[in-house]
């Protein structure tokens, strides 16, 4: 290949930098040298053909919609006659096509900037982007809720608030904040998400991108393959399904996968139906009732906007625009100091939790800091490596012959199916009855007996990661409740039913 052809193709495809004077010289040669022009044209035509041969044709959604709209237009002539003939047919066809196209695309074929790139196909609590809304090249700020978009090439994108994004084309989405998951069919292979710290290029896959308000963007590949390229980094990182990377400081560094941190298309219907059925109002009423409960020790619902001390992210909770604490990195935690020096013969612990990862030795829900000899009744509440709940009180013992095989009261039902969705965890402790009762999503799961049962003691505590390396938490916590009395089975059921974001 001669040098000019090589440089011409680099300039034409945009695959390499070509200085402006060089471009000008090539264009002059392209205009004046017929042999060179034909040589260039042969390469351009082959590349065009390769595109047509290698990628399946898209489903042409705007065209389909236009034709469907016409097919459903009411007939104004008798059925036994041709509906349109001659000039009438042309006029009708033209008028309808133009009308429909204006409706669906805002002058689709006249203004590239007005081209519909994606459509909102589902939304849960989004104030800014309602279902059916057309998305063009403008910037969108999503303050509440979750939206699911379908691009013109068939990629399904779910974006969770708070988010800011703009489509540069159907295949390029620029995101400055937010969290998205993308299901990319072959027709949209090459779909790219550009973040402030790098980009993710899909190679036919299902992946997530997290762009926090501050800090590095992350790419999580659930299935298939994605190329991660940090800004300014010449090296690209190939991420296979089950892997993830953080793009920071001009480098892509592998990290643990958090596939469940992303709301995906399958979860949208449940959230959307929950909102439509008025669950949010029921939840607020239930929380309001708890605030009046004389036995209330603490309820942490993040509503006040006053930040609790600790290291964690504030993200969207169960409801559009609500807040929850998210624990991402080892060491992330939230500090509490509740319950004072009092003894609590009865204690109910309940929380809405969205677990991203299981498998670490312990997922810490609440750990008091005073867990040491001479301080009986200190409370440690967690999910174990066996994926069951545990409530341990310092110096409590199990009765002889107890069925508990790990030395502490554990629940029976695995929480694994609840990973990646909001789940309600509750445990009721009664020192007088010497019982620990576990509940998952409002259902009674198991009662465990204690031989020695000290009254519970709280005080300084941490939600999320505790001081030890094996007490981590990967996920979100919303509405943590500590109540100085034993809630009944029915109260727990009602608490779950009122606060459940799904329908």
């Amino acid at each position, binding site marked *: 290949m001669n040098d000019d052809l090589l440089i011409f193709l680099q300039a*034409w495809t945009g695959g390499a930098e070509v200085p402006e004077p060089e471009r000008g010289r090539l264009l002059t040669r392209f205009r004046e040298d017929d042999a060179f022009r034909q040589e260039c044209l042969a390469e351009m*035509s082959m590349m065009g*053909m390769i595109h047509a041969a290698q990628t399946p044709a898209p489903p042409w959604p705007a065209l389909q919609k236009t034709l469907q709209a016409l097919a459903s237009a009411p007939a104004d002539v008798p059925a036994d006659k041709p509906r349109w003939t001659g000039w009438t047919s*042309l006029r009708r*066809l033209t008028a309808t096509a133009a009308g429909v196209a204006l409706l669906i695309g805002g002058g689709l074929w006249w203004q590239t900037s007005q081209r519909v790139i994606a459509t909102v196909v589902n939304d849960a609590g989004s104030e800014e982007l309602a279902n059916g809304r057309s998305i063009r090249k403008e910037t969108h700020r999503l303050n509440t809720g979750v939206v699911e978009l379908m691009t013109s090439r068939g990629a399904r994108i779910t974006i969770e608030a708070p988010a800011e994004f703009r489509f540069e084309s159907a295949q390029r989405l620029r995101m400055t904040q937010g969290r998205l998951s993308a299901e990319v069919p072959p027709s949209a292979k090459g779909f790219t998400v550009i973040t402030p710290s790098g980009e993710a*290029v899909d190679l036919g896959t299902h992946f997530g991108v997290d762009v926090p308000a501050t800090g590095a963007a992350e790419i999580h590949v659930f299935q298939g393959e994605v190329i991660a390229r940090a800004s300014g980094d010449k090296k690209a990182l190939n991420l296979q399904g089950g892997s993830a990377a953080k793009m920071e400081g001009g480098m892509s560094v592998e990290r643990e996968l958090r596939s469940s941190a992303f709301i995906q298309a399958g979860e949208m219907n449940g959230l959307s139906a929950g909102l439509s059925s008025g669950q949010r109002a029921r939840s607020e009423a239930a929380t309001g009732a708890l605030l009046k409960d004389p036995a209330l020790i603490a309820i942490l619902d993040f509503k006040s906007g006053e930040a609790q001390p600790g290291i964690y992210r504030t993200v969207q909770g169960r409801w559009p625009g609500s807040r929850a604490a998210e624990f991402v990195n080892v060491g992330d935690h939230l500090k509490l100091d509740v319950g004072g020096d009092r003894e609590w013969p009865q204690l109910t612990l309940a929380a809405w939790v969205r677990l991203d990862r299981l498998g670490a030795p312990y997922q810490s829900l609440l750990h008091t800091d005073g867990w040491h000899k001479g301080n009986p009744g200190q409370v440690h509440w967690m999910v174990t490596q066996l994926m069951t709940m545990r409530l341990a009180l310092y110096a409590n013992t199990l009765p002889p012959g107890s069925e508990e095989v790990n030395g502490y009261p554990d629940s029976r039902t695995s929480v694994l199916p609840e990973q990646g969705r909001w789940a309600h965890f509750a445990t009721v402790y009664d020192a007088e009855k010497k019982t620990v009762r576990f509940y998952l999503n409002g259902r009674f799961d198991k009662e465990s007996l204690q031989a020695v049962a000290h009254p519970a003691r709280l005080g300084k505590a941490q939600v999320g990661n505790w001081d030890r390396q094996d007490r981590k938490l990967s996920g979100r916590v919303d509405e943590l409740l500590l109540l100085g009395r034993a809630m009944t089975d029915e109260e727990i059921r009602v608490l779950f039913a009122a606060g459940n974001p799904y329908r």
Partner: protein
Amino acid sequence: MEPKDLDLAALLERILRGESGLYLEVVRRYEVMLRGYVASRLYDRAEADDLTQEVFITAWRDLGKFRRESDFGAWLRGIARHRLLTYFRSQQRRAGATERFQAEVCRLLEAEIDAGHRQAEAGRIEKLTLCISRLPEKLRRVVNAGLNGAQPAILAEQLRTTIPAVYQLHYRANQLLRDCLTKENLS
């Protein structure tokens, strides 16, 4: 008779008489050619397909203006050429160096509207797919990835070579594909 068995004139006649759904058969027959043609002028695969869709919508809207004795493929390419120029003009203010270069190349090719189009007939594309599958692995990888945006740099990294060398590989692949297509057409 199935839509696929109708000749083009009969199809167009029925579409104009109100059977708008039959237009998808027309799209099916010409989409490969038109996608190839548009992508040979606008080397951004997503944008090229969006623009191809607009050409089909415009063609459907203007179907009554099509002269029956003319070449329908050439008519579509004429609409595409017009749309490409409009596209590049509308991008002018925000276009980067690549888009400006593509726009100028497209403008200079205005007189050569049909150049290369015969290569993009559907049968030939099927043969091209076969020919691509016969390429040596390294060349096939380059062809599959394409040269859009960051791809040359990514390929250079993966193949442990330089960006110009990636272009050389693509050029070599194109030569082999042309040879292969010639043989396939002779056989």
